[in-house]
């Protein structure tokens, strides 16, 4: 099954990249844009007997390696 993982910076963590992107959007005339936060997106192909079985393994992967719980939050979607 296809797993889509989204990793984002926690709200209190400075995100200078997001700020720079926001300024750039403003320069382009998109003044309505606020609070740009930049994150990471990962796609994984995972073999598992069920969604539940996959879920607990993916949560483990996220907490061990894919996200750093000190600075990042994560969420994921399972397809197929």
């Amino acid at each position, binding site marked *: 099954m296809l797993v889509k993982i989204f990793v984002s910076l926690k709200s*209190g*963590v*400075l995100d*200078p990249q997001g700020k720079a992107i926001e300024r750039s959007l403003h320069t382009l005339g998109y003044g309505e844009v606020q609070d740009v936060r930049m994150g990471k997106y990962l796609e994984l192909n995972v073999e598992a007997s069920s969604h539940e079985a996959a879920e607990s393994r993916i949560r483990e992967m996220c907490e061990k*390696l*894919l996200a*750093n719980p*000190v*600075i990042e939050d994560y969420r994921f979607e399972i397809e197929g």
Partner: protein
Amino acid sequence: MRWGVIVFPGSCDDQDVFDTLKRDMGQKVKFLWHKDDLVGHFDCLVLPGGFSYGDYLRCGAVARFSPIMRGVVEFARQGGLVLGICNGFQILCESGLLPGSLVRNAGLQFVCQQVMLRVEETDTPFTCESKKGQLLKIPVKHGEGCYYADPATLERLRKNHQILLRYVDAKGRVSPSANPNGSLDNIAGVCNETRNVLGLMPHPEDACNMLLGSEDGRKIFSSIAAACAQREHRHA
């Protein structure tokens, strides 16, 4: 005393640390390959700067799972001295040996410059030869050196006096303009609660010879050597 310098794929200051310890400080030092287990007797392990595993995913995220890190964690738990410089600091944070994390510099630019550090605490093996408030001129060179910890962790660091080094101006004052990367509270270096693991972004190995513009980095290495000599003396 014996020093070990751990070499990860992508380390690039391993040789600088090795040469500084050997030639400038007259120490016994050995390279340790990240894929090996930690064997032999060491007093201090150094995790050098660089871009271990290309900084993929997050700086230090992959290196913390290198085989040698199991030994490093155990060594630290038993009270062994561990010094993480720059990427080494990032690896120590990722591995949970140090609190907090290092994120992209606030100004987004890679910074490469001399900075002034103020020694905040002297009751550690890394700062015991310095005076409280002493200023050290040591260079930084990094893109992800902005120290972050959540408010509760930061409060604990202050309370336990774990902030050992801060970025300051030439007069020793903490100020936003003296902060090269946006680190919280101008933090340049923190130790663990048991005070045997230090991580810092500046490179003391690049400030041990006047050819490089400063010898202030010696204070860090000579403190460690003095602390180890004292430990040996106590155990003798």
